[in-house]
């Protein structure tokens, strides 16, 4: 089992002088297992504004042209092969980079996927998805976040996880050791320099939550920060590979930080990233175009950057719910039900829209208003755990009492 203690032991010789340690990076390592990156789109992505059958008559009837994807016009939506039911499914025109990954079969889409619970509450839905349960009463059977439970099932229960998020996300709740840093461009330093380091090392010997958090933080700094610095102590600017360019956006910084930590080869296997702003009740068209463009370009950069490691990286993009089929009079959409999950993994049946398409006529909608859920997001995660993540026993432990359905994401 890889624990932080081992990681530290491997680098103790270097921990004396920060300047010296920087030379040592990436020494090689413990053979790394597959890596799981969970990207959460907070606020509820309007999946029907991102991937939709442009020729479906309920779709065209229930939304004015500016609120939906179009087959023609100045910016026609991008055609998706491998779509269900003979419909003309298309992708938002700002998502060219994602479209390329889809055509390369690196990614797959699962439409009408999400949470098996009727909640339309952001915070209720986020919590259930991040805890990997369908009902609040299951919280007693399944402790902590699903990503934390996967780490435990993968034998990495005491190894650090990395969240490019200011606070520990629910996905990693109750994981013993999550390093948080939303943006690594300034390093992950200890303010106050050597003097502060010397005081803080001595200050936190107690048993309180603050003591424990402080000790964990000092270890995290030791682990990550020194690997980001040049001999003179300055933070090395990150140089992504493959010609990748990360934008100055929340998701650009987030995925760049994740990629940078992956490249340090410290054996960290679980990563969490967030992107906010998807709650488009009002003035949706320009906002959504902006969001999906940022997301798509960041995903494009991430894949280009880590091109040499993609054989062991699994990335899942999810949101708490999709949005209402019928738009409101603020040119926005209200909270809905099923949404869209984006999967990137090796050995994937990529370039396909998976999952049963439930249809958009009102008798097929959930509560007659929202896209119905046909694929539980946990089935997607379970399939990835058993397949490319090489943890075949994990699904039963991560989702106790849940019977995953076959999604067909993986080449057999």
């Amino acid at each position, binding site marked *: 089992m890889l624990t932080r203690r081992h990681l530290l032991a491997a680098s103790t010789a270097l921990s004396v002088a920060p300047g010296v340690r920087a030379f040592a990076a990436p020494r090689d390592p413990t053979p790394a297992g597959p890596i799981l990156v969970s990207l959460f789109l907070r606020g509820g992505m309007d999946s029907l504004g991102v991937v939709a059958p442009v020729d479906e008559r309920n779709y065209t009837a229930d939304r004015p042209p500016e609120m939906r994807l179009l087959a023609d016009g100045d910016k026609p939506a991008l055609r998706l092969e491998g779509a269900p039911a003979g419909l003309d499914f298309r992708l938002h025109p700002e998502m060219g980079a994602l479209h390329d990954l889809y055509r390369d079969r690196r990614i797959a889409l699962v439409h009408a996927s999400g949470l098996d619970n009727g909640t339309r509450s952001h915070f209720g839905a986020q919590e259930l998805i991040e805890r990997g349960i369908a009902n609040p009463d299951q919280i007693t059977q399944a402790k902590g976040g699903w990503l934390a439970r996967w780490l435990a099932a993968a034998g990495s229960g005491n190894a650090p996880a990395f969240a490019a998020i200011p606070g*520990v996300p629910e996905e990693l709740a109750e994981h013993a050791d999550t390093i948080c840093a939303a943006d690594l461009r300034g390093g992950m330093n*200890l*303010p106050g320099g050597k003097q502060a380091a010397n005081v*803080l090392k001595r200050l936190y010997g107690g048993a309180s939550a603050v003591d424990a958090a402080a000790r964990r933080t000092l270890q995290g700094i030791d682990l990550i920060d020194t690997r980001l610095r040049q001999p003179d102590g300055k933070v090395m600017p990150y140089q992504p590979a493959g010609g990748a360019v990360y934008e100055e956006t929340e998701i650009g910084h987030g995925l760049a930080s994740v990629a940078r930590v992956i490249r340090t080869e410290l054996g960290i296997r679980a990563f969490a990233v967030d992107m*906010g702003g998807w709650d488009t009740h009002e003035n949706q068209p320009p906002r959504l175009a902006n969001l999906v463009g940022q997301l798509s370009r960041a995903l494009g950069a991430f894949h280009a950057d880590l091109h040499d490691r993609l054989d062991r990286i699994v990335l899942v993009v999810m949101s708490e719910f999709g949005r209402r089929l019928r*738009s409101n009079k603020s040119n926005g959409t*209200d909270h809905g039900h099923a949404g869209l999950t984006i999967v990137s993994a090796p050995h994937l049946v990529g370039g396909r829209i998976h999952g049963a398409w439930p249809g958009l006529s009102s008798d097929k909608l959930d509560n007659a208003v929202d896209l119905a859920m046909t694929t539980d997001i946990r089935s997607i995660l379970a399939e990835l755990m058993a397949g490319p993540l090489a943890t075949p026993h994990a699904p039963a432990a991560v989702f106790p009492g849940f019977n995953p359905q076959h999604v067909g994401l993986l080449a057999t």
Partner: protein
Amino acid sequence: MTLQVDPRTMLNKLAFGPGATELHEIAKSGCETWLMQQLRPPAQDDCAARIAASKLHLKYVSKTPEAAVDEDRSLGVVAEPIDQHWKTLDKAVPFQERAFLRATVAAATLIRAVHSRWQLREVMADFWHNHFNVNAAGDGTVAAALPAYDRDVIRKHALGNFREFLEAVASSAAMQVYLNNRSSRGGAANENYARELFELHTLGRPAYLNALYNRWRDVPGALAGHPEGYIDQDVYEAARAFTGWTIEDGAGIGMGRKLPATGKFTYVEIWHDNYQKRVLAGEFDPYQPPLADGRRVLDLVADHPATARYICGKLCRRLVSDNPDAAVLAAAEHAWTENRRKPDQIARTVEAVVRTDAFRRSSGAKVKRPFELYASFARASGIDIVPTPPLIGVLDGSGQRLFGWGPPTGHPDENDYWLSSNMMRQRWGLLLGLSDDAWKAGASQAAPAIAEARTSEQAADAAHRRLLGIEAPPKIVHAVVEGIGLKPGMPFDTRRDALPLARRMLAYCAMTPAFQTR
């Protein structure tokens, strides 16, 4: 019964930490008197003059429209009415002017947290700003509405009556913009405000029963007129009830006419969905008088028992601990419900919480949020705050961006959230920057006396006493003295760097678990 609480516990919970003035007052006339005064503060802002005399620097260059500004501005602008601030929304005004309004409200808030005599009102204003969260950092229109929201809605009602408070929030420009009700129209209403009204402002998520029931009549108690909770149908209907509630934002109202642009609340009858509705099993007849539908929704949610439970739970988590016991919850709910028609309902509820055993024993149960850490350090170490843009920037980066939290939940209030490795680094950085006066935000007046200690141990002990009121445990003295690289017993006051070291000692003592919690 007279209140028996350790004054430091009380000031950590009901104030932004102990300050010299409060400790003196309590020593003189007791906790009971202090509390009773705090529960009923005068309406006026005792920091108004200090705020008006304070300045915040504004510097920007704008290309569209052409403008360059590099000057100190008085914080007194926060006292102006909303129509003044609304003028910053004109296309001829650079966006930095709107963003600056958030910074001025944040600066005024820091000043009050450190200096106001009416500390409990400040603590409660912080509680309600998070409860009724708006994001002025993400939206210039919300920023233009923020000074009025802070002053006329949050502070005015922070210890008042919840039903009145709720209507003030519902009709405020800040909330109308933030949760989009101003653009909601009959026919396909915007549900954003109505949903968060139920889920976050009143009944709370535990009372959202949508996963259990699809029809209103199936909700237990509904047929008797007292549904236990709410479902999406209630949200849809409430959204209809609030159509027509809007603000004077210059929007067109048909026939070539437009609303004026003042940011003031107004009601537009032609946008209202006039037909009958059903909310929380209450039937609304069609064609009610102006505003009546929305007001009736507010009556229903304000009076619902789930609202008492939900808000009292949050209040106890803020004032007591992450896991308040059943007795304190019951005491709070009882006071809340009994006094729901009183003008000081909230003050009476706070009082009920303070008079419990749970409160008395709650010292150290909560991890301070960065704003509390900042204000309590400034108060304890005698920093006469000078708000500067870098100080506000650092606080923003600390994870607690005042009036700039994105989701409508407000900042998290669980200890764990504030103890991530990122948050810990920010906390340390905040204290070091403050003690070094890195942001020119005011130097500690306590440091010079500490610099006069004869030995390094005595200096560390003096810093600890200043912040925590008790002798420093030997372990802490050792950590500070040895960590800095001083020898025990070494003369301190004669050192040339005694003053900067004394400042650092204050910061290190503030990093101890005892000061990091309240």
